[in-house]
């Protein structure tokens, strides 16, 4: 059975209400905005979002009322600081946050990926981040007496959504650039949706196995979605739409403004194709790669 899905089909099938979703895993690169917008259009509810830092993607899902809980280290607008929907929801009590640090979130996912209940760390000791937070439990090293550590509880997302440059129709995926916690989130998840800029032949993937970040047998759905990460960048495909982030900041200061923004850019468009059409052509052209920079070929011969 083919794993190629439209975005609407993949979200409908693999992101039911109440799901824990790991997304926005590669820090400020390759953020799956197209997938988040489809989640908003399908009015998913009671989601738990998992990610290290989220540029404004989590803010949009929270503003649309999709989210109950967030397990993350940083939620905001990387260029501008705070994100308003997130602030309002947390201050008003409608969203619960489990405060993590980047490293401890990575460890939680890595523990999930390794199939162990926790991993130890020296980080975050003495930090209020860990206080009253069920992801942290103080342990002492069994090998070095009196050595205090945090045990960080394993995390296994119901679904991980990863954005990559290219994948074959089975979900074997190449990615290059910023990995963040994507590898751990893929291996710890119960299901994986791969969103790819382009679908390529299996031979392309197997020609460079060290660049394969996701083996297809872990993947439930492959969605081909050009510009699916806009306004975040995809190395070698398009640049970051830097101007978007201050604009979004200015246009979402109140709930009414945020609703209007979501209506214009998410609810009011059918899919990513229509969204891309709506972006000013000159602006889209300005994001194109100006100077291609190909890696030296690697000889896998024997």
């Amino acid at each position, binding site marked *: 059975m083919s794993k190629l899905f439209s975005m609407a089909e993949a979200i409908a099938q693999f992101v039911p209400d109440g799901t824990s979703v790991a997304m926005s895993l*590669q*820090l*400020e*690169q390759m953020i799956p905005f197209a997938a988040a917008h489809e989640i908003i259009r399908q009015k998913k509810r009671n989601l738990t979002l998992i990610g*290290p*830092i989220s*540029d404004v993607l989590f803010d949009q899902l929270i503003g649309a009322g999709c989210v109950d809980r967030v397990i*993350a*280290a*940083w*939620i*905001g607008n*990387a*260029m501008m*600081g*705070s*994100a308003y929907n*997130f*602030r309002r929801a*947390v*201050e008003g009590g409608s969203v619960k*946050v489990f*405060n*993590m*640090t*980047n*490293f*401890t979130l*990575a*460890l939680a996912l*890595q523990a999930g990926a390794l199939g162990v209940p926790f991993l130890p*760390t*020296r*980080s*975050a*000791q*003495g*930090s*209020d*981040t860990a206080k009253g937070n069920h992801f942290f439990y103080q342990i002492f090293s069994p090998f070095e007496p009196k*050595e*205090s*550590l945090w045990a960080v509880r394993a995390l296994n997302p119901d679904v991980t959504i990863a954005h990559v440059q290219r994948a074959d129709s089975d979900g074997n995926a190449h990615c*290059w*650039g*910023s*990995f*963040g*916690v*994507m*590898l*751990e989130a893929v291996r710890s998840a119960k299901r994986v949706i791969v969103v790819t800029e382009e679908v390529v032949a299996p031979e392309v993937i197997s020609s460079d196995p060290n660049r394969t970040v996701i083996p297809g047998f872990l993947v439930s759905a492959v969605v081909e979605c050009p510009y699916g990460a806009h306004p*975040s*960048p995809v*190395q070698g495909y398009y*640049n*970051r739409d*830097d101007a978007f*982030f201050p604009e979004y900041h200015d246009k979402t200061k109140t709930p009414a403004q945020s609703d209007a923004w979501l209506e214009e850019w998410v609810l009011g468009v059918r899919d990513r194709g229509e969204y891309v059409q709506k972006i000013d052509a000159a602006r889209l052209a300005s994001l194109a790669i100006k100077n291609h*920079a190909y890696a030296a070929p690697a000889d896998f011969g024997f």
Partner: protein
Amino acid sequence: MVAKKTHAPNAVGIFENGVIRNSPASQLIYTMADPPNILGATQCLEMISVMSLLQSGRVHLGFLGAAEVDRFGNLNSTQVQGPRGIIRLPGSGGACDIASLAHRFVVLLEHKKERLPERVSFLTSPGNGDGPGWRKRVGLPRGGPSAAITTKAVLRFREDGEAYLHSVHPGIDVDDVVMNTGWKLKVVDEVQTTAAPSRAELQAIREYDKEGFWTS
């Protein structure tokens, strides 16, 4: 970037998203994952690999920002008390990990009384806790604050774990700094004036951040 072009040409830049660079990105970046920070990198790993370098003690210096910095160099970037309740901020990101695990860290912030309280309202990233010995007692392996560079002064930290006024920036009075600090700031007998940036340093900054996004 400035250090590489001036006093520390062999410094290596390490970013939480997994990027390790021997040379700075060729143009201004707004985030560590901007494409210019990937092109020409030495290595692009996953976050946990970079964090392993921090935890095993191979990262000397961390640079951080914060909403609040207190008397013992603890940082808050999670939440502050506003006039009408809690104001939620973005959170730790990797700041807590860097403050916990680097050999030392430097924090930069605007010098305002409300941003320099006696005690942070939420301890996101550990400085010296409540004084000497605290880091060891809670299980941190090393490190701590080395300086807080504000818009008025440079505060440094002594054996007792507490911040003191080390130097004031040119044109700033010691009283101005003391009045705008949320605790009784210790002042050394002869407060120095912060050295003005050299011509080479200024040139490096202005060539990189042409429109002053990060530096004006």
